[in-house]
């Protein structure tokens, strides 16, 4: 469905100073600086996949997505998506894709979402009957029957986001780009949106998801692509991502005697809560769990303990600041 080959994007930016002297100098001469936002990346996405495209701020993921949606022209490289080159056959291509931006609204602030839907119907040339059927199906799925007739400015963020999804799905896209789709939403609204995405994915819609909310990744994505400094540093399944950094566990421990401040082989102190309560990271490749429990029980006396897989945040943090893994 998407084939990205040696995609590169370089752009020039002004180097601006912040002191008064530098600002004055910039009035006369502004030095230019070349920024390589995306460096020779290649990957493919199959139809029906749900791929999380992750990376720290400024890593190049938004630039990549803008090239995949046909908004930006690359400096070099190829993209074939739905059999088309996005920036060359933009009109034909965008007719078949959808996009939802958590921080950029496609709705119109002062009028009800249904008016904006109707405007999109005309722009996409959706036949009246097909429009009515799709709108009916989507409003039922997202439960926004009454909501979409109120002015957008009177809607809650969750209601607005549901309407953003309707706006993006009305023309029946085969491929949908989601950029922070659950940002700022409460637990219930997040769950509704995630259920909707899963439902659409089951119906064959391919999703490319960009987010900093790792719950979205864990609950939605099957595959993760991580980009950092413009390069792909990881591209595989979510379980493989967890396993790449070894068999680590997060342990919260309460003991009879105070716990030591210093780490020991296979044990890293993550957070000290009290003298005898702490969160530890255990590398079970170095210190098997049964040995850790026996050793700590004998030395400090375990009163309470919880063991969980290392949170994905920890894996991502190491990936963002560490060296490329694959």
């Amino acid at each position, binding site marked *: 469905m998407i084939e990205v080959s040696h995609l590169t994007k370089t752009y020039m930016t002004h180097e601006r100073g912040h002191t008064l002297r530098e600002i004055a100098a910039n009035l006369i001469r502004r030095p230019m600086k070349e920024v390589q936002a995306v460096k020779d990346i290649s990957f493919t996405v199959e139809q029906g996949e749900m791929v999380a495209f992750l990376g720290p701020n400024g890593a190049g993921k938004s630039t990549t997505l803008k090239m995949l949606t*046909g908004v930006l022209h690359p400096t070099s490289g190829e993209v074939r998506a739905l059999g088309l080159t996005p920036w060359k056959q933009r*009109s034909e291509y965008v007719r078949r894709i959808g996009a939802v931006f958590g921080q*950029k609204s496609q709705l119109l602030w*002062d009028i009800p979402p249904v008016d904006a839907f109707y405007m999109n119907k005309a*722009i*996409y*040339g959706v036949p009246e009957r097909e429009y009515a059927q799709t709108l009916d199906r989507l409003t039922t799925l997202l439960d926004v029957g009454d909501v979409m007739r109120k002015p957008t400015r009177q809607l809650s963020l969750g209601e607005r986001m549901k309407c953003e999804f309707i706006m993006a799905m009305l023309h029946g896209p085969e491929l949908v780009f989601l950029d922070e789709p659950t940002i700022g939403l409460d637990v219930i609204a997040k769950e509704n949106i995630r259920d909707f995405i899963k439902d659409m994915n089951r119906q064959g819609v391919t999703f490319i998801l960009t987010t900093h909310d790792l719950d979205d990744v864990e609950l939605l994505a099957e595959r993760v692509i991580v980009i950092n400094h413009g390069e792909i540093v990881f591209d595989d399944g979510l379980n493989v991502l967890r396993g790449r950094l070894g068999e680590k566990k997060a342990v919260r421990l309460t003991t009879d005697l105070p716990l030591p401040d210093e780490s020991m082989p296979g044990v890293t102190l993550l957070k000290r809560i009290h003298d005898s309560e702490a969160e530890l990271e255990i590398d079970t490749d170095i210190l098997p769990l049964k040995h850790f429990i026996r050793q700590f029980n004998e030395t400090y006396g375990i009163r309470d303990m919880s063991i969980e897989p290392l949170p994905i945040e920890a894996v991502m943090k190491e990936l963002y600041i560490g060296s490329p893994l694959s």
Partner: protein
Amino acid sequence: MKGVFACIASVLRTKVAEQMAYRSHFFLSVILLVAGDLLVPMITLLVYRSGASFPGWSLHEALLIQGVFGLAKGIAFPIFFGMVGSTLSLVREGTFDLLLLKPRPALFMTMLNGLDPEDFGRLLSGGVLFGYALSGLPAPKFNGWIQFAGLFLASLAVLCAFSLLLSGLLFRWVGSSRVYDIFDSVTSFGMYPGTIYAKSFQQLMTYVIPVGIIAFVPASALLGRAGWETAGAGAAAALFLIAGIVYWHRMLRGYTSAGG
């Protein structure tokens, strides 16, 4: 073509609905626009009342130029000129991306986004002034009307080209609202009889930066003062429009979006 008209109708309907959300703002804006557009004709009136004049032009003839200017703005501003404002804000915010995600030509989407029903108020002031000016003049001949109609289209083409040039400039000159000042300064030369300027400047105003085509040339046709040499002005307007379209698309290629 049917789809294009459906888009325009749907967007116009939505824009009117948006304006109606704040009716007092809408009506106040229309009144202020009309008042603003009548300012130059009022000065012209005062100039003539004080005994001064534009040499060779009666009061009603001079007001006819300004009436044609108002009519042209009354059509071009709600339809084309809004794209300058929408480019200004959308490029600065990085939301121009949303227009590029629609399956229509980028220029058409920008124009749709900039449709501004509020500006139709200018048509009212232009129409009133045009009617008032004509009431004090001998009735134009049929040929004059035909020639005027063709040159009025050329006038709209020039205003459209200006919109494209200013909008295109904003892809590089991000967030600069000074483009409106540029437009007002340059086009203000077109609100007066071209004959008050030097011959070389008249040529410049007709064939290079054709602000004279916005009002002076069409009004001259209606007054029976223009001959077939106005065909050259029509060609200049067409070339100016083509240059505007090419320039806009070239500048769009340099659009870099905003950080995400």
